[in-house]
């Protein structure tokens, strides 16, 4: 049987050797590396815990609630408190475990306030002011307290939840981290006293 002439065989188009131009290759590799780098950093960040002991405490600026200023100042910068021991406590009015330690923190404050050597700062994490004030009044808290505006402070410390308390020594280095509520005033005092002893 004769082969019918092929009906749809176009003459082969001239073989075009399209090598990838150099700029395109560079672009592809650079893009790939950049993407991997971004993902790597994002991954590392998500795997990172909070700031750790022996890290320098991130500097921050706390705007206090009116009536809860520090020595009359409504803006408290951590850097300005160098030379003193600073206890930074993250809390929220909607946080049930925070209530367990609230009274103990106030007792600790009353114990250390006369010396002026230890500063206790309360940082209110994503909260609403009326409820926050209600919480502070309920536990009779008088130490300086302010809202974490824009969640900048909590992001700097990379907190994972509330309550968390960070103890910063006179040189601005973190010496102790408490995740979760304190069980008693003695716990708080023992940590502060041990930092004082280290000098």
């Amino acid at each position: 049987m004769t082969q019918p002439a092929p009906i749809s065989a176009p003459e082969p188009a001239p073989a075009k050797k399209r090598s990838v131009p150099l700029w395109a290759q560079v672009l592809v590799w650079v893009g790939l590396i950049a993407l991997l780098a971004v993902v790597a950093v994002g991954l590392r960040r998500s795997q990172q815990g909070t700031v750790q002991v022996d890290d320098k405490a991130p500097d921050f600026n706390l705007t206090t609630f009116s009536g809860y200023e520090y020595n009359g100042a409504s803006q408290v910068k951590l850097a300005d408190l160098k030379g003193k021991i600073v206890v930074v406590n993250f809390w929220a009015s909607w946080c049930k475990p925070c209530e367990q330690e609230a009274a103990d923190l106030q007792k600790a404050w009353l114990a250390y306030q006369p010396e002026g050597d230890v500063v206790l700062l309360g940082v209110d994490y994503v909260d609403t002011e009326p409820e926050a004030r209600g919480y502070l009044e309920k536990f009779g808290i008088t130490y300086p307290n302010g809202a974490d505006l824009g969640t900048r402070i909590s992001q700097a410390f990379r907190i994972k939840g509330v309550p968390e308390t960070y103890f910063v020594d006179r040189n601005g280095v973190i010496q102790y981290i408490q995740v979760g509520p304190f069980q008693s005033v003695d716990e708080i005092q023992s940590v502060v006293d041990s930092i004082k002893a280290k000098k």
Partner: protein
Amino acid sequence: MAAQFGYGILVICFATALFAVGAAAYGYFKPSQRWVESSRYAMLLSFPLISLSALTLIYLIANNHFEIDFVYSVTSRSMPTYLKVTALWGGQAGSLVFWSWLMSAFASAVMLRKWDRDREFLPWVIVVCCVTLAFFIGLGVFYENPFARYWQTFDGNVLTAMFRPAGAVAFTPADGRGLNPLLRHPGMIIHPPMLYLGFVSFVIPFAFAIAALVTGRTDDRWIRITRRWTLVAWLFLSMGLVLGARWAYDVLGWGGYWGWDPVEIAAFMPWLVGTAFLHSVMIQEKRGMFKHWNTLLIILTYSLVIFGTFLTRSGVLSSVHAFAQSAIGPAFFVFIGLTFIASAGLLLYRWNDLKSESELQSVLSREAFFLLNNLLFMSVLVVCFWGVIVPLISELFTGQKITVGPPFYNRAVAPLMAGLIFVMGLAPLSAWGHSTWKTIGRAMWKPAVAAVVLEVLCIALGLRDPIALVGFFLIFLTLSITLYEFGRAVLARSRATEENLFLSLWRLIGRNRRRYGGYIIHVSMMVMAIGILGNAEFSADTQGTIAQGQSLKLDGYTITYKDLAIWDTNDGRNVARAVVEVSKDGKVLTDLYPRRDYFYDSQQPMTIPGVRSTIQDDLYVILVDWQPILSSGATFKVYHNPLINWLWTGSLLFIFGALVAVWPDRDPEYESARERARMARQPAAAD
């Protein structure tokens, strides 16, 4: 005992997969047929091994072995047995084993096909499949061990480990934590398997593409081999997405089905590229063009599958959907890095050899439309990928956390989807190689008239919203054109063969399953689009706290709170069920029973809506569970979702269309003999 056995088998399976990789590569380079055969057997062996391991895990779950950490975290005594089995994929470790099980099953299925014509592909297909398999099993072996158990040390701490730590004793909790109540729903039972099936089956075309690149077989053989795999993979992935949407609608209680959550997007991205790939390979089959592009697309699909799995499981993204933080992130990252680099390198290396066999000749040819289709799908992909990645970049450079949410995606994706609908309508009208506006216009004007008529009807019924007007017109146009193509072909065939219309339709579809299955899928997509558009533009909701006897009003409906009942069930739930009466224009329509289930074991509530579904809308009533639920006052949220059921019905039609497209053709010689016999029996066809 069983746990050690399960873990041991898992380790052996890991070793087997690694052996298969090594043997296949060695067999290729040496070259040695024996080594390649050996690797093939190793690949086949991995399936019974992983099955044993997975079945052991299921056994442990079904028999309440709460000393195993994974079992404790996903089941409890009060769960029914069928739910316990599905808890296999209810947590990270078990779902990794499940993933591996499916991967092994599919890879083994590939091994069982006839390889006579494609011997050269075999080693590299095995390498790719087994590297992927080994990676997922490896994650289970080294990081997320599903068989790890609890031990208690002398000072009371409970550890999780595979083998007994020094000085510890076995510890068995009395009951498990139970599966998250949100996951105890039929949609959730089948949604992960569907998604995993989709992900896993896309590995096969990727394996063949890599094999083609490595061996230098630059024709479209690999595409022809994997044509059905691609369609099946795409079917599973599509169903996985639809089921996830259905689950969200039924159970999450916010009246919607797609929230542009990063994890949803992580599953959506492979689907986008997979769809582009599905269409683009037809150009290569028909005209031998765009080989670079097709290879790139399948590499991208595989990469997005792995990348999406990584995003979901590593904790990089914040999402309601994501698994908990885990150590597998870095391992995943290394795997992704290696596969991206290897694939990109391989493609660039072979770039010159992938020459086109013909030239693009006409702006209106079908190839051009397919390219436009690809451009639009890739643009949607860019929007999704950018939206997911940009919060990471922003945090890296500015320290500021940002959220990229629904407004961003909806605004960008809607016009691109509209473009896709338009292209979907026109492409079947154009021919391969060349077309002109005249030919397309001639084929199109009748359906276009039908579309205009439907549009005018909508306007007459009161439709004024401009987005809906444009959207519905495009949908009507594409629907009319596709149905017209069907009708025209059926009429032509029926006239030529003197069969009745239904027989013609059946035979027509049967003889060209891929094309007409594809048309049915297009029609189903338009039906779904009607639902999506109607719901997006016209849904409304209201919320209010009412006492018994009072009502809420929404869009002409009145919802009256009639009764409340609260009781404890025997499977560990406290149920609060309200009775609400739905009426419209004074006529009572039905009673609905929204309820709130509180699960004692996991201490989590779940709301189940009462829904009245009709073809034109859903009326969806939920009990707001963070407010008190009392006769004197309960808070209800009512959603009115017009046309939403077109979405779910369309998806059923979609399954049918995909099955048609995938169904194997009968033996072509048998088929043509039958056709000849039939032709011979009939009187001479009038022409």
